[in-house]
């Protein structure tokens, strides 16, 4: 029985055959657009490289007339494969990511977080061509709770972070006191307080205070005093378990 994090996070819970529940962290549109741009640069770069190579062969005419024909034929085939099949092959591979996705820490997976098949990869990548062509279609993914675009829906795939949860290099401010919580909280609410404690090191003081001010009815304090209280509540929750 896992906690539902859906309202405080982009995590999504799936139950595996082992009876255990894993959490996949869906990737948002911004990072995916960056990954797509990177891939577009890679494709354009390789196409130009192939073009230059073919041109050199044709101009130097080392291979004679037949060589020129072969060079331009190879160029056409290479363009076809790079343009259409580069993302298909990379995403169906072990890493489940194109070069752009790998650089941004993303990965394409199945419902259960496993490697996708060739067919799935073909579907999601071919359909992207029409989604890019009609610029409104990619916006659909903004409204999907797991940021899936139409190609993802048809292929049954998800784009997630390679690491399911952020690694937390910094430890937040320590709680100075233990503050008991006067009312009973649901598991999700408890989880929210603990998550605040775990992640607070990444935020500025003002942001922490802003978030905690929402809990004013519970803490009876605002600003830094409120932050102290909530951290104390986190400590109380942890000590109790």
């Amino acid at each position, binding site marked *: 029985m896992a906690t539902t994090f859906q309202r405080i996070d982009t995590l999504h819970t799936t139950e595996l055959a082992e009876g255990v529940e894993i959490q996949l962290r869906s990737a948002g549109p911004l990072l995916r657009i960056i990954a797509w741009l990177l891939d577009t640069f890679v494709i354009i770069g390789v196409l130009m490289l192939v073009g230059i190579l073919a041109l050199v062969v044709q101009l130097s005419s080392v291979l004679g007339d037949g060589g020129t*024909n072969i060079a*331009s*034929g190879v160029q056409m085939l290479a363009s076809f494969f790079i343009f259409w099949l580069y993302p298909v092959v990379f995403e169906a591979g072990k890493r489940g990511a194109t070069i752009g996705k790998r650089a941004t820490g993303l990965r394409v997976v199945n419902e259960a977080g496993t490697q996708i098949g060739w*067919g799935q990869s073909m579907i999601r990548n071919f359909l*992207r061509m029409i989604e890019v062509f*009609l610029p409104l279609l990619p916006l659909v993914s903004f409204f999907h709770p797991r940021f899936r675009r139409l190609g993802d829906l048809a*292929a049954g795939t998800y784009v997630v972070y390679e690491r399911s*949860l952020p690694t937390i290099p910094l430890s937040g401010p320590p709680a100075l006191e233990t503050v008991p919580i006067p009312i009973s909280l649901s598991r999700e609410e408890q989880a929210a307080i603990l998550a605040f404690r775990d992640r607070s090191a990444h935020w500025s003081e003002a942001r922490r205070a802003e978030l905690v001010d929402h809990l004013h009815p519970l803490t009876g304090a605002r600003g830094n005093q409120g932050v102290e209280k909530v951290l104390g509540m986190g400590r109380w929750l942890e000590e109790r378990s």
Partner: protein
Amino acid sequence: MNRQEFEAKNEEKWADLDLKLRLLEGGHKVEGLAKVPALFREVARDLSLAQYRMFGDRVIGRLNDLAIQGHRLFASTKGLAGEGALSFVLRKFPQAIRREQRLFWLSSLLFWGPFFLMWFSTKMDITWVQALLGPQQLSDIESMYGEEDTVAYLRQQFGSNFQMFAHYIQNNVGIDFMLYAGGLVYGLGTIYILVINGLSIGGVVGYVDYAGDPEKLWSFVAGHSSFELLGMVVVAMAGLKLGFAMLAPGQLKRGVAMAKAGRDGLPFLIGGSCLTALAAVVEGFWSAQIVPVETKYTVGIFFWVLHFLYFAFAGRGRSEA
């Protein structure tokens, strides 16, 4: 047991599994391989416990990654290389076509309807095809199937056989993929490309009848026509399936209906584009060879009959899996 005790107690076990999974993923040998699944199940249990006790992102995140990694390894479904491809060609592809016969005829109608319409329009009024194809394309057709020698014309345009083959792969298989993707606009993109192709191919046939030498055209296209036209019609089936799923998802949610249409349409996408790729092979290496016209017609008819037999009978009686 609080978080610190939990971590301290199990740290060694987690690090052990982490190392073993990494080694296995890299294809290395691992000592005590038989114990890895049991170790994995133990860690999966740790994850459940950590989630229940809310031990925080750091512990849960780490165990979660281990569980996903392990599941990836244990749940991988790789058959023998080539096994899947063989059963696809011998069984699954023709079975899928027979299962979706109505869709096949609909897709065929969307191509052949405009094809014959445009062809017969040239008998009535030649201006239709002139408006559709434009002067540049018409003069190309005239030089290709007119006084000049067709094969010599193609040689001059494309250089070698290999170059022709490469051109047709890039062009025609690319069109197939767009044909499929067009299904995403409620099927309209697929229908549009299919109809336009029907109109312009029918227009070419009609115009050659009118202004050129039909025998040159037929002897050139006979060999690869079955592969190319059936390939296009079959890929369009996959696109239409997607379009229907979006338009009328029935009792399913739209997303679920699309996933089903994607899965069910996959054989048509793969099979159809393979047919088109084969068409490029035939077109590049056979259709432009200098062979008696009768031989070319015979080969063309042979391939059409072969396709019919394949779609009608291949894999019949075998269980559909």
